């Protein structure tokens, strides 16, 4: 299997297009899984049995293995050593622990980058990454893709039908950029493919501005900041396509050799907008992400939204491929989660659609950059205090696994999350106080208590099942997206646009209509002018049928154009500072469109007004809480499936114990020894109940 690398020079491009075919996910409901990242290559084989015994004692049923083990699997070019991995997988099986195999391409061995230095990535400032850390590879290097596919193929050949391998993780937390010559070359070819002619590009990018006019595609710089907004947006699209083809390269190596029951995923990071995750996940079977609170304090609303975001990548359940065993090592202080919060986070993840929770990490390597990271075992190989809490989670997962198998959240409220909008605002935030993710979270925090379940999805997703769809800061609205959204409203949906919506088209050019651009006619109103608000000025008051409160950070003055446009909120009469432009003008309007309603809220509202406005909108759309009167911070997360009783996970995120009355008696699966059913619950701090409508069979 040696490769003649000299012929690689003629392979100039390696961008693989989406094939469009998603492999079918496994059909049999899988048990709820709990486990950890395990690095047998870091330890003598004599230690493995002790590790796996301790895992089994914590009811672990999955480990992720090998995602950084390239130098152990292929110690020299073309010389493979998988014997140790064979034995590790077999030993895990003996302990009833399934294995997810990671392809090791986030950490190429020293021999590889020494021999093929063109596989090293180049930073935007021109520095070449070095061996000694990780993610030193170039995602655009054709060489690297060949070498990555080769190790993935070797692994797939060996383990593609191993019954203890349930899935594959490609690479690890992808996203490190490169600005090497391959990237530049591919960028130019990508642009040429998209725009066909340089004139077309010049028109779309309006390059007469500052004489940016390009004569040829290869004049176009590859930069990630301080460029023409159109270039920057296309850069993000190029990055998305590059990472998608980078992943596809390994999918293509593994899929033909792997059992259809083995899933293929990659683990992504937090609210990360390096690339479009909807595009990236198209050809993966499963979304998985790494959930960390480095400062040691859970924000339950943020974490809920992050789960919902990841669930939205493929609009199906997901995995928590990594989460913290009490603390991390990359925060500024790295305080520990309090006792009970690790369990609270595990159940919250499950409530939002996670089917597996894996802790990072089992045990710290004796040396290496993450010695201080939270782990389940100490340096002596014995449990640290958080082990017991995770063991409890393991016990509980086993109790609830059968009831939860095959279930998923199903929600009637959606929030649209658009990478184009996120990027367009990040490139030109206009005020550093405006954050796209904050705009999304403001709506999420306000809607979560009433909705008791929210989907966060791509604007291009099928919207027909939703009673209400919120689109905070949907900055980029192309004509085709406008048509898609209008079809939803016409059919009876309620679309609520937030501030900054509809300013840009898909080329990040200004829409020739005022905001919300191609939706302005349907709205029967338009944005007359937008204003960034100076926090030194008093926050303008806002009042109307949605409630009363204040705007801050951003305010748009709306002008109704149609006689039946209803003004929902007006700015108050104050004229201090730039508020003078706002005084007494409309801040929010709604307009009936077909069988539905289109609403536009032009300002960032204070939390209480946002709560009032969102509740009003949800009530009007007959979205009612399943379990009414829950205190804010007590979260209800139903998971359901056809022909199965709904399972509701109830968590007390508040700082005090809570007494919860249920509308009718329910069974708490975590307390099987208690009464068969109960109509009231006492939830301590971080308390969790897993409720079913009827007794499980």
């Amino acid at each position, binding site marked *: 299997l040696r490769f003649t690398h000299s012929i690689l020079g003629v392979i100039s491009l390696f961008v693989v297009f989406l094939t469009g075919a998603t492999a079918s996910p496994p059909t049999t409901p899988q048990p709820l899984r709990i486990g950890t990242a395990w690095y047998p290559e*870091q330890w003598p084989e004599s230690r493995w049995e002790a590790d796996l015994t301790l895992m089994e004692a914590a009811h672990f049923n999955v480990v992720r293995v090998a995602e950084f083990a390239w130098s152990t699997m292929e110690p020299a070019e073309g010389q493979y050593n998988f014997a140790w991995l064979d034995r590790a997988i077999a030993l895990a099986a003996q302990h009833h622990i399934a294995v997810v195999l990671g392809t090791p391409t986030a950490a190429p061995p020293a021999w590889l980058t020494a021999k093929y230095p063109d596989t090293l990535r180049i930073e935007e400032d021109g520095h070449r990454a070095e*061996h000694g850390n990780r993610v030193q590879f170039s995602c655009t290097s054709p060489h690297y893709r060949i070498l990555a596919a080769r190790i993935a193929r070797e692994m797939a050949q060996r383990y593609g039908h191993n019954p203890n391998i349930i899935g594959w993780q490609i690479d690890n937390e992808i996203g490190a950029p490169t600005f090497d010559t391959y990237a530049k070359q591919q960028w130019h070819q990508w642009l040429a493919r998209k725009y066909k002619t340089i004139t077309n590009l010049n028109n779309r990018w309006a390059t007469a501005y500052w004489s940016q006019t390009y004569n040829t595609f290869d004049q176009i710089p590859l930069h990630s900041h301080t460029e023409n907004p159109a270039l920057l947006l296309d850069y993000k699209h190029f990055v998305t396509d590059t990472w998608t083809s980078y992943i596809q390269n390994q999918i293509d190596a593994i899929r033909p050799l792997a059992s259809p029951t083995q899933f293929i995923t990659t683990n992504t990071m937090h609210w990360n907008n390096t690339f479009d995750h909807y595009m990236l996940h198209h050809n993966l079977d499963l979304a998985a992400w790494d959930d960390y609170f480095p400062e040691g304090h859970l924000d339950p609303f943020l974490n809920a939204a992050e789960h919902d975001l990841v669930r939205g990548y493929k609009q199906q359940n997901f995995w928590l491929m990594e989460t913290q065993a009490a603390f991390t090592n990359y925060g*500024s202080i790295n305080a520990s989660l309090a006792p009970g919060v690790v369990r609270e986070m595990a159940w919250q993840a499950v409530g939002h659609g996670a089917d597996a929770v894996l802790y990072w990490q089992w045990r710290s*390597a004796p040396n*290496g*950059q993450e010695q201080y990271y939270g782990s389940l075992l100490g340096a*002596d190989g014995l449990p*640290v205090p958080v082990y017991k809490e995770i063991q409890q989670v393991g016990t509980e997962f086993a109790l609830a696994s059968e009831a939860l198998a095959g279930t998923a959240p199903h929600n009637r409220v959606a929030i649209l999350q658009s990478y184009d909008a996120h990027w367009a605002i990040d490139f030109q935030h206009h005020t550093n106080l405006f954050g796209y993710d904050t705009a999304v979270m403001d709506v999420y925090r306000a809607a979560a208590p009433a909705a008791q379940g929210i989907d966060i999805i791509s604007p291009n997703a099928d919207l027909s099942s939703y009673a209400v769809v919120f689109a905070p800061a949907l900055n980029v609205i192309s004509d085709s997206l406008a048509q898609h959204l209008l079809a939803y409203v016409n059919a009876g949906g309620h679309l609520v646009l937030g501030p900054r919506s509809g300013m840009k088209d898909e080329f990040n050019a200004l829409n020739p209509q005022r905001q919300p651009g191609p939706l302005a006619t349907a709205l029967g109103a338009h944005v007359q002018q937008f204003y960034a608000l100076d926090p030194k000025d008093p926050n303008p008051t806002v009042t109307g049928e949605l409630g009363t409160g204040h705007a801050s950070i951003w305010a748009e003055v709306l002008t109704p154009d149609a006689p039946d446009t209803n003004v929902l909120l007006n700015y108050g009469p104050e004229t201090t500072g730039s508020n003078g432009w706002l005084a007494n003008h409309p801040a929010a309007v709604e307009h009936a469109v077909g069988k539905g309603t289109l609403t536009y809220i032009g300002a960032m509202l204070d939390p209480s007004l946002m709560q009032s406005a969102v509740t009003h909108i949800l009530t009007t759309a007959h979205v009612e809480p399943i379990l009414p009167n829950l205190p804010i911070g007590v979260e209800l997360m139903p998971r359901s499936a056809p022909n199965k009783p709904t399972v509701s996970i109830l968590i007390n995120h508040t700082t005090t114990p809570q007494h919860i009355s249920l509308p009718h008696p329910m069974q708490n699966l975590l307390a099987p020894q208690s009464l068969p059913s109960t109509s009231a619950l006492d939830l301590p701090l971080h308390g969790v109940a897993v409720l079913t409508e009827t007794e499980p069979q």
Partner: protein
Amino acid sequence: VTTRHPIRLCRTLLTGLIAVACFTVPAPSQNRTFTTKNAPLLGAAWYPEQWPEANWNEDLTLMEQAHFTVVRIGEFAWSTMEPSEGHYDFTWLDHAIALAAKHHIAVVLGTPTDAPPAWLTTKYPQTLRTDEAGHQAEHGNRRQFNYANPLYRSICAQIVAQLAHRYGHNPNVIGWQIGNEYTDESFDPATRTQFQQFLHDKYKTLNNLNTHWATAYWSQTYTAWSQIPLETTHGNPGLLLEHKHFVTATWRSFQRNQINVLRPLISPSQFITTNIGGLAWSDNWDHYAITADLDLASWDDYVGQGHLDAPKNAMLNDLARGWRRQNFWIMETQPGSVNWAPINNALAPGETRALAWQAIGHGADAILYWQWRSALNGQEQYHGAVVGPDGKPNPLYPELQQLGQDFTLTRAALAGTTPHAEIALLHTYDSRWAIDFQPHTRLYDQQQVLLRFYTPLQQLAQSNGESIDIIDPTQPGSLNDYKLLVAPSLNVIDESLAAKLIAYVQQGGYLLLGPRSGIKDAFNALNPQRQPGPLAHALNAHVIQFYALDKSIALAHADKSPNGTADTWAEELAITSQPGSATDLFYNAPHDWLDGKPAFVESNLGKGLVAYLGTLPDATTLNTILTRAAIHAAVPTSTPLPAGIELCARQSPDGQHRVLILINHDNTTSSITLPTAYRNILAPTTSSTTTFELPTQGVAVLIPANDK
């Protein structure tokens, strides 16, 4: 300008010789003891090369009138000494040294290797340093040289040989300073190769290196020495620690290159030092290793912004005294203000003198002001100076003159004296580095942590007329002189250090380990035992888990009554076997992992005691813990001195002759009563008494009433 040595040395030949010599030169003066004659000396950095010779006499006259006894000369004068390659001009320096002698001012000669001339780096660009980002330094500043470059070393050896030949037996030259504030390493490919060679020499096999660095992690596994990067920030902790060892070895060989030239050519009475920058605290390299080859440690004591932080400056002086475990020099200190702080305010009247006396009290034998006079141009025009651009005294001059008078009055009493300590703080650069590579919380400031322990210990010691030593227990030298050893964050403890500490305790010592101790071995790998690693067995206890704290938490007695608070870092301790016994300190933190867990454990071992404190308590609680440890260690405790009063004691080697230095750092007049009568030799006309009143910044130097 005369050409003294027309025969040029073959630089290529030298390059080869020096490269071989880099890591193989034996330590020349590890155990050399040096005593400064006529201490304390007072002086300034003087740059005659910046001024017409006609001005010199006026400068030296003003110095003599301020009772200055020493000047440092020459450390940036390479372009004047060797205006073009091989053309030397030392006549000006001959004149300057001779004129200083006429004014009874001795000279310390600096080798000028911190600032190579333009012709040198133009002709030999490979002598220029490359920073970590890959940029090559340029002429126009200083420190542009590549510390690892063999050619630069050979050129340095030539200029040093010239100086040593000429002044090595000049009776007015009392010592030598090599370079200036070693700073700024190089990251060029040749230095990288040297690093790889350094690792090869140390580890012998890649397999050995891969094992100690656990490189299976992230597939870092090295299959050739040439694959190993030279980097300082994101690397494997094993690599980062070795880079520090390499930097230390490289500066040490850079320095030895010059020592080896000087030593055979100079009089045995002339000392060799280097002035250590970084406010004594910088940890760019191991100060114990660098000063081991010198006769004398010296450092540059600057306050920068604000005012004298007396406990901190006391601690830094003690740290400097600990590098060689002997008296030291303040080679530079500020006359009023500096030019590099965010706000370069001046020290208050009297503060400069108080700072000088504090240094003397902690073992300094010389105080030199930087600088005498600002160059008319150059990067430091705004730095504090003794005289103005017109050459006339600045307002601070009379204060320095008073200091000169002070030194004259006390020279006889202070001769041959040094601070003495029965308590030592343990400090190693390996531990400093290991924590700073992986602080885990930005709140863990090691200087503040050391100061938290130092401050109460110093209070305790000074009330007994004792000092605090700060020492590296891995260095040669006995620990048995000390009754109490306190190691606030001894992060790196390998088996050999553990054995030395255990032996100390078994023979009757008291060892108190602080938080973060013993997690790492000498390769910055995790010890396979829980903390304190190889000392856990001796402690009969270990750390169950460490936690970074983002807020303070309560501490309690065994009966749950309040016992202060702790912050920043907390470790849960557990007793593993009797006779270990948790003392009366527990965390009281409801809903926290630490709730009800021990924060302190003490255990008998042989004739002594070993204890572990897993957190950073508030000042009062820590003071209680340390006082208790002192009592158990048979260190006497006396009534604390009034706030702001510092008492420093220096004594003769036999302990029979003692001098007390009293300083009032407080902003009000304060008085202190001593158990027996003393005489203030700064006020020769006053009679002996037991009570001394000191104004703000006031200083008294006391000898027992019955001493001469």
